């Protein structure tokens, strides 16, 4: 007889064994009601919560105004520092009192309009205005200054003397358009970020914790004396948890995000969910590697925190990847989420096709294979 049918029979049995193990993982997970409830929560309600996330913008930021000019122009300025960004209020012209209000956080900034402000504007001279910003939060501090600057520039050009020379001076008008999310709807960004975060935590933690549990209880010895190879055991954990995560993200994206919240789905669903499955397997592989370093659940919890937190915080969902120091940018190439961020935003919001995301997808798969090889090798070494 030829070897081919025999090989096929062997492969079939190999796969059936993996499938049986996957079924065992699922049954085990389903019996842990608290855990099942929580997994359901992170892919449904939690995504809804993320849609109401705060956004980095000013909302009625309290601004104090010291008006030493008391002119029409300065009152016009006060009128323009308005909702939704600012909430302007007159404050006493007293340095100590102003400093105190800034320290207490009652005011975000204080704007001082000096005497002669209007006269300077009308005559076409430079009008000086002072702004003191409480910048304990550097982002908000920057926004306060840049919005005030914009409002002042507009006021100046509106109040400039008619037919002024400035009309013939060179000017570049910069128009900005926001692509892929023209109105900067926060919910689109926040729900995708949250989904990626939850996907990552669940994909790494579920198999890692399941693996260490077998070690702690000693049930892993039973698996090892069974006719199963380490690769089968590792693969079953990876596939089982990736399956759970895939179902979860289908519900999250299809029902909650696209269905309920109207987040666009510009690209191909088949492409997106295939890549989610690959991502979940890659991240699960990392979870398995982490589990081989731990002997107890306490240890694995801490090891996973050490891996998961930098991955979810520094891969580009919550930070500006480009602005990190070079050594961190280099290190983050080892984070599977780094690739998935480009893929997820690319396919969901930007309508990226396979050709566009091929490079990050390929790198992600290579990383996943590396995790699988290292995980299996370390697993084998621990028990042989």
């Amino acid at each position: 007889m030829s070897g081919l049918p025999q090989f096929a029979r062997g492969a079939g049995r190999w796969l059936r064994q993996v499938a049986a193990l996957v079924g065992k993982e699922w049954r085990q997970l389903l019996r842990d009601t608290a855990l099942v409830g929580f997994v359901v929560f992170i892919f449904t309600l939690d995504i809804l919560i993320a849609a109401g996330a705060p956004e980095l913008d000013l909302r009625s930021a309290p601004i104090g105004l010291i008006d030493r000019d008391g002119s029409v122009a300065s009152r016009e300025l006060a009128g323009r520092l308005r909702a939704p960004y600012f909430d302007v209020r007159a404050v006493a012209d007293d340095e100590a009192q102003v400093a105190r209000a800034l320290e207490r956080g009652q005011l975000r900034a204080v704007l001082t309009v000096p005497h002669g402000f209007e006269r300077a504007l009308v005559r076409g001279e430079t009008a000086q205005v002072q702004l003191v910003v409480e910048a304990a939060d550097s982002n908000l501090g920057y926004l306060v200054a840049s919005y005030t600057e914009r409002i002042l520039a507009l006021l100046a050009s509106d109040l400039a003397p008619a037919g002024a020379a400035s009309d013939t001076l060179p000017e570049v008008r910069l128009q900005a358009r926001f692509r892929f999310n023209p109105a900067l709807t926060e919910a689109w960004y926040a729900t995708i970020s949250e989904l990626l975060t939850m996907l990552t935590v669940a994909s790494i933690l579920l198999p890692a914790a399941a693996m260490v549990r077998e070690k702690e209880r000693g049930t892993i010895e039973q698996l090892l004396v069974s006719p199963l190879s380490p690769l089968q055991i590792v693969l079953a954990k990876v596939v089982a948890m990736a399956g759970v995560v895939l179902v979860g993200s289908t519900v999250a994206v299809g029902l909650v995000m696209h269905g309920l919240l109207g987040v666009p789905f510009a690209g191909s669903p088949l492409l997106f969910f295939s890549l989610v499955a690959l991502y979940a397997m890659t991240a699960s592989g990392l979870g398995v590697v982490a589990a081989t370093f731990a002997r107890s659940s306490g240890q694995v919890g801490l090891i996973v925190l050490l891996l998961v937190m930098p991955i979810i915080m520094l891969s580009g969902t919550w930070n500006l990847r480009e602005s990190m120091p070079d050594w961190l940018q280099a290190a983050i190439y080892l984070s599977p989420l780094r690739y998935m961020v480009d893929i997820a935003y690319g396919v969901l919001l930007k309508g990226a096709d396979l050709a566009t995301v091929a490079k990050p997808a390929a790198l992600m798969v290579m990383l996943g294979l590396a995790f699988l090889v290292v995980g299996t090798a370390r697993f084998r070494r621990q028990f042989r």
Partner: protein
Amino acid sequence: MKLARVLALAGKEAREVRRDRLYLLLAFVLPLILLVVFAYGMTTDVEGIGLVVIDEDGTPASRRYAEGFLSTRHFVHARADAAAARGETALIDARARVVLWIGPHFERDLNAGRPAEVLAQIDGAFTTSARTIHGYLEAINAQTNAELRTETVAAGGARAPSAAGVVAPVQLQTRFLYNPELRSVVTVAPSLLMLVLLLVPPLLIAVSVVREKESGAIFNIASSTVTRLEFLLGKLIPVVAIGVANGLLLWVVVIVWFGVPFRGSVPQFALAIVLYVLATSGLGLLVSATVRTQQAAIIITTITAVIVAVQFAGMFAPLETASPVNRALARLFPAADFLAIVRGMYLRGAGIDIFWPELLALVAYAVLVLALAHALFHKRTTA
């Protein structure tokens, strides 16, 4: 409740921690690593952002305009052929975040005194960075305009009554208090105390309680005279001690390593750390009372901490901009109160006279959560 029994239990916990070398190492090294990596990485500084220029004018004026952006540390030239840039693939595959289009009549318009139009396409998928990047683009554009005007006026091209007034009709002198250079690390590093102390103590305590449930060691407690309160306090004391030690260590590292000044009162801030660690540990105890497996304990405490840090703390964005439901949910967790205290005490040097409501909230939170955990905890598990 007998103090001797509580101390005996706490001593047993402490011994267990001490004997698990890896665990002990992680419990102290992990917070430090997270602090350092996050302080460097969770930056919101706008630096090295990829910018593609499509210069259809190709004149000295247009090249100079583009150079105005690329010569700053904020933007770097992203390589993309014209076709790719126009088809926006550079934005789609995330090679660049901005495509700057300069039209064919740029120089002619400038010389003729007509406004020259320039279009910046910004990747809006990341809303937060899109807003900041927009701000920087506008600031650089305004600066270029001021330079152009100064040159034209100096060359006698305008009959202005006052050259300065034409170049810059309003001058805004801005002074940034507490963080004069607007370095994001000054904002981020102190906030990490909130994050790290939200992650580590709940995980430590939840695992240590649930381990006894899962291994069955809890039956020893169930059959003994030890009360639930004594058992929980025995668990709580070592973890709170580790958490507070971590907090003090991070406090010093933020000052010494990251150079963020601490202007507040030392005993007041120490008190805030103790209260916050009690509150977050209580959260861990609450989780441990409701789950049976360590797997569930790890996952639920970790994910809860991540959700609270990202959504309910006001770390990335001010909570005032959140939806009313989210603001109400944020009240259920201690992170926002502690973050307000951290930022206020570190940089602004504010004290208990300002932050007594937040400190009281932490006290109330710690008491409530610990009481609830006590009520829900059973020595006899159904597992």
